[in-house]
Structure formats: structure tokens, C-alpha cells
């Protein structure tokens, strides 16, 4: 049997995180709410209405595009995509066609068990979502179909990749990276369960070594990353078997059936849509002036990939820790603020964050901004571990109390009987022992190397199980080396 190569391009829709719809003032919070509770004359296509573009949707779309290294076109226009379906009350969808707002991007992906690679993005365009159709209500059959237009007019971006994806793992990694970046810049929440992120896959095969691309099938109804991966694997096998048995792949739309783990034909090219795109006369062109693009670029946050690189190279974190911390923007921000308080204990901060804080937050389904104490407290706790004041066991105890009370770890250390010893005689005894046991540091300190005091302080803290008063320790060490 010949060797075949898999070729995949993905089309991903993400809901822009606006409060109102793309062309009208209806709220976008309709998920799980009463049907048709977020509708108006515009999104139900009453005669004589006019769409007015949502400025925030444009802002978010532009941010997503810049984060994906796309070029923002100086001018883009909205077009009508014409087709009849009851979820589309105007009988056309306002989209962008030959002049989208953004093109030519790229995304670095990190597929499992393979080297990172770059996937090129063809374009990103803005469009409105359609409504939702209901064909039955549980067991109750309906003698028609029911239409809920809460989603009609919800702002979306469609991100179209080049056919650069070669394995289902790469497709999975592409979606993971894409979601990470889009969420990071706040363009979309990408909650797949709420339909805020959806994916179609264009899949074809060709004999290894052949230049020309094979005929592709478009797979729809992929509502999880795992479904995308499974559907691509299945479609690859189906097409290879078809070609091997003398058949030909036809250009068609296929639906993924997760229960049967198979794709089934939905419509063939013969009844392929003829959308008759044309510029929407109700909407004026959209621009992206160079000054605006420059201002947007300046306001972009550091992206996860750059942040990961900085966390590993500058802060000495492991790849894994860096990955965990940059998985969420609020978490990364929390970490960075905590590290300000303990610049030399970044690793400890990361450990406490991952093992203590994140575990508790995840258990309650909360984000880092719901932590019951400020980031500085976590930094201080890491500092107390780093300077020997607290053992790692002690840190766990203090953390548990921080979680319950929101109190400063320094206060808790005394509350928990980890309070400092400020008895001159006792502390001096520890200082004397510490100086004797750390002859080199002691000599350095006597020789004027003030930084060497850290090692002695640390030794005293160890001897005192973290209970010696640091200020007193410092004072007594300085006196001892002067004497």
C-alpha cells in the first residue's frame, strides 16, 4: 500500500466577548436564558431596519488578529452571504468576503510528541452568528421546527488556516494554542460548551511525495477538541481506503457523529451553496488607520509563548510550571505580582501557586482573581520559605490559614505559634553557632561583604526553626562580626 499524507486546514469561529450583538443593542448573555428574550427588530430582520456596527467587536477582532500576527487591512467591507435557512431571518448573513479585516497571520503550535511548528493563517473575518433551531423538545415531537434568535447577530470572528496541518495531534495543538492566545488578549472566552468556539475541518489526502492537493471534504459538527482529532483520524482512514479501493474523494460536506465515531455525508457539490456574495449596502467600509494599528500593538499584552520563555529563562521555572502559569492571563498576572514581593523565590512562588492556590481555586471552579488574598501575600509566604523562616510543611499550614482568613502570612506565622523568638540571649546563641558553622560566610562578612549576611541569617533561621526575629538576628550578627 502507498503511503498517504494527511492535509488539514481548520476554520474556527470564536464569539467576540462583547456585551451587545454585532449590529444591534441586544444583549449577548442569552445562553440558557428564555428563548427569544434577546431579540429586536434588527436581529429578527423586520423591514426597514439598519445594522450599526459594534465598536467593541471591532476592537476585540483587531486584538485577536494582532495576537495571531495577522496584518490588519487598511480597509475592509461587509458582504452579504445569501442562503435560505430558518435560523437566518434576513436570508443572508452579514460577513466579510473578498476584503476581510485581516490576513496573513501565523500561530506557533506545540503538538504532543513532536517539534513545535508554525501554522499559517489565511485570514480572519468578522461575521454575525445565526439563530438556533429546535426540532423536538425532549421526547415531545413538534409538528414543525422552532426558532430561537438569541444567538442571531452575536459577533464572531472566523479564523481560517492554511492547509498546513499534517496530523490530528497538530490539529489538536493548533486549537489549544489558538484558544490560549484568543483568551489571553480577551477577544473571546472560547467556551465551547456555550458555542463560543466552533471548528470545521477541511481534510484531504495525497500520496506521499505528491505536490498537488487531493480533493477535500469539509467536516462539520465538531464541538470539542477531541472530536476534531477523532474526526480527522477517521476521515483520513476513510479517504485512504476509498482511494486505495479505486474510488475518488468527492468534494462534500460531512457531519461528524461522535456516537458512531464516523463522518456521514451531508451534502455533495451538486447542491453546493451558491452564496452570491455582494457588498452590504447597509454598511460602510471599516478602516484600520496606521495610528490605530500602532496604538493597538502598543497596548497588546505579552503573549503566552513569550511569557513562557521569560519564565523559564529569567525566573528559572520548569517548562511545566511556566505552562501552567501562562494557561490563564489572570493566573499569570497573579504570579508576576507575587514574584515582585519575593524576586529570588520565583520557583517557590510557582510551587505554592500550582500546588496550593490553583488546586483550591480549581476545586471551586474559580479563577485567580477570586483568590481570598492579594498576590503580595503569596509572595511574602514564598519569601518566608526562602529565608528559612518557614519549613515547607509550615508554609502549607500558613497557606491553609491564608485561604480561610485572607490574612498576611507574617501575621499568621505568629498566630500559629510560629512566632519569632526575640529573646536576646537565645538569639545570640543561635548567631554564635551559625557563625561558627559557616566560617566562609562569616569571614566574608568580616571582610566587608555585606551580602554574605544572608547565609548566616538563613542558618540562624534553620537553627531556630524559623522562629528567630529576623531584625534582631540581623542586628546581633552585625554586632558579632564587629566585635
Amino acid at each position, binding site marked *: 500500500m502507498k503511503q498517504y499524507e494527511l492535509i488539514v486546514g481548520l476554520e474556527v469561529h470564536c464569539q467576540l466577548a462583547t456585551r451587545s450583538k454585532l449590529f444591534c443593542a441586544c444583549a449577548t448573555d442569552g445562553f440558557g436564558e428564555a428563548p427569544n428574550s434577546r431579540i429586536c427588530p434588527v436581529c429578527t430582520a423586520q423591514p426597514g431596519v439598519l445594522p450599526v456596527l459594534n*465598536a*467593541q467587536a471591532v476592537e476585540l477582532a483587531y486584538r485577536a488578529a494582532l495576537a495571531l500576527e495577522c496584518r490588519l487591512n487598511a480597509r475592509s467591507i461587509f458582504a452579504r452571504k445569501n442562503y435560505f435557512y430558518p435560523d437566518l431571518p434576513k436570508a443572508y448573513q452579514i460577513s466579510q468576503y473578498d476584503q476581510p479585516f485581516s490576513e496573513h497571520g501565523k500561530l506557533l503550535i506545540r503538538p504532543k510528541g513532536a517539534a513545535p511548528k508554525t501554522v499559517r493563517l489565511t485570514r480572519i473575518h468578522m461575521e454575525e452568528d445565526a439563530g438556533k433551531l429546535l426540532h423536538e423538545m425532549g421526547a415531545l415531537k413538534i409538528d414543525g421546527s422552532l426558532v*430561537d434568535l438569541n444567538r442571531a447577530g452575536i459577533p464572531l470572528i472566523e479564523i481560517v488556516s492554511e492547509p498546513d496541518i499534517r496530523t490530528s495531534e497538530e490539529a489538536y495543538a493548533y486549537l489549544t494554542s489558538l484558544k490560549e492566545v484568543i483568551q489571553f488578549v480577551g477577544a473571546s472566552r472560547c467556551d465551547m460548551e456555550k458555542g463560543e468556539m466552533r471548528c470545521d475541518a477541511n481534510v484531504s489526502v495525497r500520496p506521499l511525495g505528491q505536490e498537488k492537493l487531493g480533493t477535500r471534504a469539509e467536516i462539520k459538527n465538531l464541538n470539542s477538541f477531541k472530536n476534531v482529532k477523532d474526526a480527522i483520524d477517521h476521515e483520513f482512514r476513510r479517504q485512504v481506503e476509498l482511494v486505495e479501493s479505486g474510488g475518488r474523494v468527492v468534494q462534500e460536506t460531512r457531519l461528524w457523529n461522535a456516537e458512531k465515531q464516523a463522518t456521514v455525508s451531508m451534502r455533495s457539490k451538486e447542491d453546493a451553496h451558491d452564496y452570491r456574495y455582494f457588498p452590504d449596502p447597509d454598511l460602510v*467600509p471599516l478602516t484600520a488607520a496606521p495610528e490605530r494599528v500602532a496604538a493597538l500593538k502598543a497596548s497588546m499584552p505579552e503573549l503566552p509563548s513569550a511569557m513562557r520563555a521569560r519564565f523559564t529563562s529569567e525566573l528559572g521555572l520548569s517548562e511545566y510550571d511556566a505552562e501552567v502559569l501562562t494557561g490563564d492571563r489572570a493566573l499569570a498576572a497573579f504570579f508576576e505580582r507575587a514574584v515582585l514581593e519575593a524576586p529570588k523565590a520565583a520557583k517557590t512562588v510557582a510551587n505554592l501557586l500550582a500546588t496550593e492556590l490553583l488546586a483550591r481555586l480549581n476545586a471551586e471552579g474559580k479563577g485567580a482573581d477570586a483568590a481570598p488574598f492579594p498576590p503580595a501575600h503569596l509572595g511574602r509566604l514564598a519569601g518566608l520559605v526562602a529565608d528559612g523562616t518557614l519549613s515547607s510543611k509550615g508554609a502549607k499550614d500558613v497557606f491553609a490559614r491564608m485561604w480561610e482568613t485572607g490574612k498576611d502570612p507574617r501575621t499568621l506565622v505568629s498566630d500559629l505559634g510560629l512566632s519569632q523568638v526575640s529573646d536576646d540571649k537565645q538569639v545570640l546563641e543561635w548567631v554564635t553557632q551559625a557563625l561558627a558553622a559557616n566560617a566562609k560566610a562569616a569571614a566574608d562578612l568580616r571582610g566587608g561583604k555585606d551580602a554574605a549576611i544572608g547565609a548566616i541569617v538563613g542558618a540562624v533561621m534553620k537553627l531556630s526553626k524559623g522562629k528567630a526575629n529576623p531584625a534582631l538576628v540581623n542586628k546581633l550578627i552585625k554586632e558579632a562580626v564587629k566585635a
Partner: protein
Amino acid sequence: MSISDDEVRKIAKLARLRLSDDEVARYGGQLTKILDAMAELGALETGNVPPTASVLGVSDVMRRDEPRAFEGRERLLDNAPDRDGPYFKVRKIIA
């Protein structure tokens, strides 16, 4: 430029129109006349004219992202040919 009967039928199908053979012939003739009229524009030199998407000369007309509830929901539902409680109702589209 003449439009074939098949093209007329295809356009009719896209517009969800059912045409009799007489209508196909009649509309074909009318569409051909429209295209002939448009073809006169072909005499103009338009090589340096970019395709026009908008003639208003303005751009970036936008509104702030402020949700506002529309109070006439019931009237919108009543305005449809059929409704079922809070839903618009249409003919069954899948079996």
C-alpha cells in the same frame, strides 16, 4: 448576452421560486435585456477604477457596546407567520 433557460432555472432555485416553462422563457428574456443594458457600461474604460463597495464616502460608522433590551418582543413573535410560545415556528426542516 443571452441567458439560457438552465441559468434562469438555477437563479429561480436559489431564490426559492417555482417557475413554469412559460415563465422561464419570459424571465430569461427580461434578464437578458437587463444584462444587455449593463453591458453598455463595458464600453467605458474602467481599468483604473477600483470596484465600488460604497458610494457614501464615509467609513467606520459605529455604536458603543451598550446592551439595551427591546421591549416589543411579543410583537416580533406575533409578526411572524407562526409562533409556538416563546418560539418562532417554521415548517419542519429535518425529519
